């Protein structure tokens, strides 16, 4: 803009030079105003800073992890001992993380997809849909320690005694069931949000194309819309899993302050474990850190490293899902 405008199409050729390749037309910031250039520089710097922080965390934990992690830690449960050599590993915590991850996401995924389908495809009654939307946003904003407290109220009730340890009619209220249910609430908003995003990204005419060959809304949703939004649903599930395995507050409050599995006697496998208390890697890291009861920071680093690897694996999985989705292709508009 602001360049002089020639009214005649016959501008003299500049010096008879041969036409340059198009590279010359790439816009450089040299012509920009100073403020714009400063703005761009700040954006660059912030981006680099963020990368540097992420790399620093990863590298530091990686080095510490390599230094302190021993394969035996992954298979030995924690035990009481006076030195770090005697106190075992964190296999119970590792399995605990896997259990809450699987249980939490298998509750959150179907419910989240269901809610998202209802909101996007039906959305009626409109008032109820709006209320649901803001409820889910509210859940996303609630600190997980508050969810945990609320969970103790629910799962200590007599009616839900079958989900945790009971003795003489007193419901303990802390179990893998209790923790997984509340952790699924942490993952739910992410699943709902990304499923909605996926459904919304499908053009309206694709739905209509399905209706226009006589398919019902239910058939369209099941066979076209949900499969088409699979990449986004997977992303939501991965993000949700990341939140679940990263949560500490709910684990501390609702899974019991143990460092080992505490199965309920007399219950059938696997319910004896699922009804009992336990721990996860986050809880182990918290307890093993210098502020915790175990105070064995080297093992805290080792466990944190394992946790980091799990999260990185989830990120890689999200990437893989999206790469696969690109192979399937997308609509032009």
């Amino acid at each position, binding site marked *: 803009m602001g360049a002089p405008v020639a009214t005649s199409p016959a*501008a003299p050729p500049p010096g008879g030079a041969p036409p340059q390749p198009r590279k010359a037309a790439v816009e450089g910031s040299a012509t920009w105003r100073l403020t714009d250039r400063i703005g761009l520089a700040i954006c660059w710097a912030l981006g680099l800073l963020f990368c540097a922080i992420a790399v620093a965390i990863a590298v530091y934990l990686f080095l510490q992890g390599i230094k302190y992690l021993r394969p035996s830690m992954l298979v030995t449960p924690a035990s009481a001992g006076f030195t770090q050599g005697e106190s075992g590993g964190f296999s119970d915590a590792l399995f605990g993380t896997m259990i809450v991850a699987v249980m939490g996401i298998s509750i959150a995924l179907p419910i989240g997809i269901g809610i998202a389908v209802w909101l996007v495809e039906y959305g009626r009654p409109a008032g109820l849909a709006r209320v649901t939307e803001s409820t889910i946003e509210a859940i996303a904003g609630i600190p997980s320690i508050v969810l945990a407290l609320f969970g103790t109220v629910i799962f200590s009730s007599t009616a839900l005694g079958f989900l945790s340890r009971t003795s003489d009619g007193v419901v303990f209220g802390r179990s893998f069931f209790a923790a997984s249910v509340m952790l699924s609430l942490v993952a739910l908003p992410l699943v709902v949000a990304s499923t909605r995003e996926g459904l919304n990204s499908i053009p309206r005419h694709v739905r209509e194309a399905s209706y226009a*060959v006589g398919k019902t809304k239910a058939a369209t949703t099941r*066979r076209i819309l949900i499969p088409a939004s699979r990449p986004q649903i997977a992303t939501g599930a991965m993000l949700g899993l990341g939140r679940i395995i990263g949560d500490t507050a709910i684990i501390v409050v609702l899974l019991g302050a143990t460092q080992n599995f505490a199965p309920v006697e007399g219950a059938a496998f696997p319910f004896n474990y699922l009804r009992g208390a336990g721990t996860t890697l986050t809880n182990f890291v918290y307890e093993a850190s210098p502020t915790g009861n175990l105070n064995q920071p080297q093992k805290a680093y080792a466990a944190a490293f394992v946790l980091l690897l799990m999260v990185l694996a989830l990120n890689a999985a999200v990437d893989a899902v999206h790469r696969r989705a690109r192979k399937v292709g997308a609509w032009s*508009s």
Partner: protein
Amino acid sequence: MELISDVSELRGGMDPGNSDTPRLPPPVRRLPLEDVPAARQASPSAGGGAPAPGGFTGARRSIGAPQFSIRRMEIDDVSVSYSNREAVKSVSLPVRQGEVLSMIGPSGCGKTTLLRSLNRLTELTSTATLRGRILLDDVDITQIEPTLLRRRVTMVFQQPNPFPMSVFDNIAYVLREQGSRRQRKKTLEPKVHSALDRAGLFEEVKDNLDHPALKLSGGQQQRLCIARALAAEPEVLLLDEPCSALDPQSTQVIEDLIVKLRDDVAVVIVTHNLQQAYRIADHVAFMYLGELVEYNSATALFGSPREQRTQEYVSGAFG
């Protein structure tokens, strides 16, 4: 916009008033481009060449006289409104098998709305209300179950929209009962092949029916959508500007296909492209601001329109 370019092409050939007084185009304002020699900037040739007089003499009719024509649908005094805005105003039209019916008109004239009301797709818009009657083989379509009606009257859309699955599954989806996957691949194979064949796509895709449909070219995707619409064994095929997103070669292929299909199904095509309507339609309905201005055979409507507005539209005076 596509429409404008079409009409301006038309104007060069249609406007008899300008044919003997060549007018210089207005001066073109240009930004001086660095490193681009002036010779490479297209300069408008003064006068633009002698426009050919006469109407659509340049355009080629690729459709012959119909062998037969059977009345299948009857649009009887239909009005459609969205909230308070009336998009279609009491239109009456016949739809016949053995013929191609084309609806033309400028944007927002209600032609797509009318098309969508033929298989009750307008009902998906909650604000839309329809008055009047639409008959399919003398049965009011409101008496027919919508999913059943939409298998008898299928539709192809402006944007190619194959489902995100393989070429085979796109067709098989239509053949299967609602959401089920019950019928085996083997039993569906002949029907899938014949649908692809009728849409002229089978030869191109027969070797990899498992190819993801969204990776086909735009023209192939649109023919897949036509195959999908044909797989339901419809009696009426609705096409909503099926070529507007395609290149000229794909358009040609699809036009040839439409001409071939008219004996099996009644074809209704909405188009922005007047030449296209002239090339492939037996009857043309010209709509303007929701009203049906003129309904006539293509040669009559383009050659000697009865209405002043039709004359003006086909000669490019507005639109």
